[in-house]
């Protein structure tokens, strides 16, 4: 593949992104043109980026090292290094950006004339570029700069629609938590520097003593955990993602969270190379808790984007379970199992990017058409928006890991890696693995229930509000963008082996063991079964078998029962008059059984305000309100913040009292203290 000159392609795609940004600035006045040029540029650049990363993945060449700019400030040089892992994440990013940009051509039109579209596109492109540099940074300080830049630009995007109440606070929580998380990363990088004297990510870390490595691991875990949104530090995620415009929250949820996974693999697995098994166990525990709690909280949400944000927490949990297993395996010397588990988690990362990106775009289409994010006000959209409903159905099936779609295959691989790590003898790890199997099963079922609620309540039944009744079908580019993602989900779901080759390149580069041998499957016969440790699945055969069954059943019924006579009539209403939309099951009602079962988790509260009429038996109105407590915020974060504020207020008023005498006393004491110190020292 001699035509493939890597750095031209890389620089080419960056240049096109910049050109798109400049075009957005030039056509600042005319919003239509501005959107078209900017997003078209992004699509082109994304395609180039995808081709570039595929080229890197399949060219068996050593890591590509570029150094476009060396600054005179010590240790602050722009070094770009792309190896298989960065290329894989670049591929994921490019695929998502391509689809989201096609979608945005239609979506951003609802900003035209109302908001500063030029600024939006510049920020959007800057956000993508900062993520590209996070994936391709070769030097830790440049990585940190790209990391912080990504956080700041996404903050501006989150508060882009600041007039909606709540967006401001969401942005604030987001930027403060990510900044504090980044501080931990900085400490880890500095420890790295103090021992190895260089910031090179690809350098070897043997000179770092074991204690420092443990400390670095803890700091990496905290820093990347905050960005990934694992449970104890996830509270910014359900605020930030819904606040951002839908195409941006698709990027944030789809790929920005994955930068944390990239960070963990790059710094913990490749750089520090796993020292102790408790590293893997820690990640596994966090993964389990995040998976279960993420989906449990998602169930109770009725705002689509908050629901999807909580699901990101769940899927990050599943990815971390895979990663935890691979770390445990690597530290235990079981290279093959580590490879398979790593392949599972990377595969789930890619799948999650596809269907979560698609779901957020779907939420954007619903908001575009019905101008609301609250499920309780939707209903019956399937009749008004047939194409969007089919796409959202595909994504819902994919996220609840149901068979023909890609969610299932990656979860199946995670099951297999969990299955093969259990060996009689390691008691603690066995219990943990079984618990994670149970957690995976439960989160899968709860996710299915949650997405039945999302799809059923918003798309099926009768429209619950005027806006839902007259929701127009969204413009074509929006559906096109989502369509590509849905098609990819289905294709990977049916022919997983095709994509596992790509991941195998990454795994063999990262961990040195080729996994395809184990996963068996020729490159061409994409439909060859995915086998791990002798257990195999071939989704294509299952699909063909069930299709044959359906056709046979239809034929037999046609033969036996004659032509299908169908009569349209109203739904069974027990003889009362016409069924009103209020009689349908609402989202709150749908999840009521689970709210009662898991009440220790939600601590639900309810209130009933009754406006008295003239007699007690005929009230004018009843207002029934039920809510679940945000446990983490109420019992962890708010008390902490109030305590800190009270402490700071008390100290401030006691030190800065305003009296000149007090201030002079401080200086006097300082003089005496230092003289004493000098005398004694």
């Amino acid at each position, binding site marked *: 593949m001699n035509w493939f000159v890597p750095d031209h392609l890389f620089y080419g795609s960056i240049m096109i992104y910049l050109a798109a940004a400049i075009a957005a600035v030039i056509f600042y006045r005319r919003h239509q043109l501005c959107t078209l040029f900017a997003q078209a540029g992004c699509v082109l650049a994304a395609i180039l980026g995808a081709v570039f990363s595929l080229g890197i993945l399949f060219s068996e060449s050593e890591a590509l090292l570029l150094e476009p700019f060396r600054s005179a400030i010590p240790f602050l040089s722009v070094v770009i290094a792309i190896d298989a892992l960065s290329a894989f994440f670049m591929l994921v990013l490019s695929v998502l950006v391509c689809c989201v940009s096609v979608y945005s051509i239609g979506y951003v039109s609802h900003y035209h004339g109302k908001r500063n579209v030029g600024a939006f596109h510049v920020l959007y492109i800057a956000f993508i570029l900062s993520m590209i540099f996070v994936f391709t940074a070769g030097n830790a300080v440049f990585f940190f700069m790209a990391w912080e830049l990504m956080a700041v630009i996404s903050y501006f995007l989150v508060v882009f629609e600041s007039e909606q109440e709540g967006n401001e606070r969401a942005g604030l929580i987001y930027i403060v938590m990510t900044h504090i998380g980044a501080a931990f990363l900085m400490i880890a990088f500095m420890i790295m520097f103090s021992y190895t004297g260089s910031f090179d990510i690809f350098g070897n870390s043997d000179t770092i003593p074991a204690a420092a490595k443990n400390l670095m691991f803890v700091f990496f875990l905290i820093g990347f955990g905050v960005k990934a949104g694992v449970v104890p530090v996830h509270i910014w995620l359900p605020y930030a993602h819904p606040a951002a415009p839908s195409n941006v929250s698709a990027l944030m949820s789809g790929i920005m969270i994955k930068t944390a996974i990239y960070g963990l693999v790059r710094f913990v697995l490749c750089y520090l190379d796993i020292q102790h098994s408790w590293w893997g166990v820690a990640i596994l525990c966090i993964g389990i808790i995040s998976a279960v709690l993420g989906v449990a909280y998602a169930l109770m949400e009725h705002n689509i984007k908050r629901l999807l944000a909580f699901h990101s927490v769940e899927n990050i949990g599943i990815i971390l379970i895979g990663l935890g297993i691979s770390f445990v395996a690597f530290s235990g010397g079981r290279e093959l199992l580590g490879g398979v588990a790593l392949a599972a988690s990377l595969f789930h990362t890619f799948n999650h990017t596809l269907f979560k990106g698609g779901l957020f775009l779907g939420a954007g289409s619903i908001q575009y058409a019905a101008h609301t994010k609250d499920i309780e006000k939707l209903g019956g959209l399937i009749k008004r928006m047939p194409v969007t409903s089919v796409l959202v159905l595909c994504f819902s099936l994919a996220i609840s890991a149901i068979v023909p779609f890609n969610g299932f295959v990656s979860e199946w691989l995670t099951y297999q890696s969990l299955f093969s790590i259990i060996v009689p003898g390691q008691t603690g790890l066995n219990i943990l693995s079984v618990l994670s199997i149970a957690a995976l099963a439960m989160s899968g079922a709860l996710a299915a229930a949650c997405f039945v609620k999302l799809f059923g309540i918003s798309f099926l039944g009768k429209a619950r509000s005027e806006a839902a009744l007259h929701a127009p079908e969204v413009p074509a580019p929006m559906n096109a963008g989502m369509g590509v993602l849905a098609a990819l989900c289905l294709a990977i779901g049916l022919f997983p082996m095709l994509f596992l080759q790509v991941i195998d390149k990454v795994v063999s580069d990262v961990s040195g063991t080729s996994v395809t041998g184990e996963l068996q499957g020729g490159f061409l016969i994409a439909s060859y079964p995915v086998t791990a440790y002798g257990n195999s699945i071939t989704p294509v055969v299952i699909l063909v078998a069930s299709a044959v069954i359906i056709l046979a059943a239809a034929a037999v019924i046609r033969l036996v029962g004659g032509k299908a006579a169908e009569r349209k009539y109203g739904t069974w209403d027990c003889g009362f008059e016409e069924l009103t939309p209020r009689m349908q099951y609402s989202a709150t009602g749908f999840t009521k059984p689970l709210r009662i079962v898991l009440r220790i988790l939600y601590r639900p509260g309810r209130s009933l305000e009754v406006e008295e009429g003239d007699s007690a038996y005929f009230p004018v109105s009843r207002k029934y309100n039920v809510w679940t407590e945000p446990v983490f915020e109420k019992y962890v974060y708010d008390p902490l913040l109030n305590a800190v504020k009270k402490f700071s207020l008390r100290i401030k008023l006691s030190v800065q009292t305003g009296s000149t005498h007090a201030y002079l006393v401080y200086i*006097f004491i300082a003089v005496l203290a230092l003289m004493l110190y000098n*005398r004694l020292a």
Partner: protein
Amino acid sequence: MEHYFDVLSVLILLSSFVLVSNKRIHAYIKTFRLQSALIALTAGVMGFEDVVNDGNYDVLVVCAIIIALKVILIPRLLHRTYGNIEYRVEKDFFFNIPILVIICCGLVVFSYFSVSNIGALSGLHINLQVVNSFSVVLIGFFFMISRKKALGQIIGYLVIENGIFVTAMFSTQGMPFIVDVGIFIDLITAVLIMGIMVIRINDQFESIDVNKLKNLKG
């Protein structure tokens, strides 16, 4: 010649004790004038000795400046400022006088404890003189803290400057001439500015009690 300076340093220390035990602002100014006169005397003796030994007149000129500034000009200025502030007898300090004096003694002991071990000052007499004059600085500082009135704080500042000047005289036979002149210029401008400010405070706050100046909190 040395025991002249011992006596003078002790006298200056005593004058600062007297200052601390004064109640009225008039008394402050008078004691300050006394202290400045003593310092001028030391400077005069030292200057005369310099003229005799190596004939440079710097220290004598400095002594003249001290007399002009600290003995005559500044006290009159303070009197005038204090003049047009209406007179209200208030308890001007936090603790009563015996406690103040005890604290000043404590300060003297402390300054002896912390300064005495310095090698260069080991010569007994220089050491003693430096300790006395240094404790004048600390007492001036403490005086500033313990007085409620703005004028009291100005006097405290002036006493600190006196203490510093005397420490310089005793330890190093005076600073380079330009530096001394600069210090005096600064001193006189500082007093002028503080005087104007005291008058303005008196207009705005109707009293020169520094405790009224407390609304810039937090």
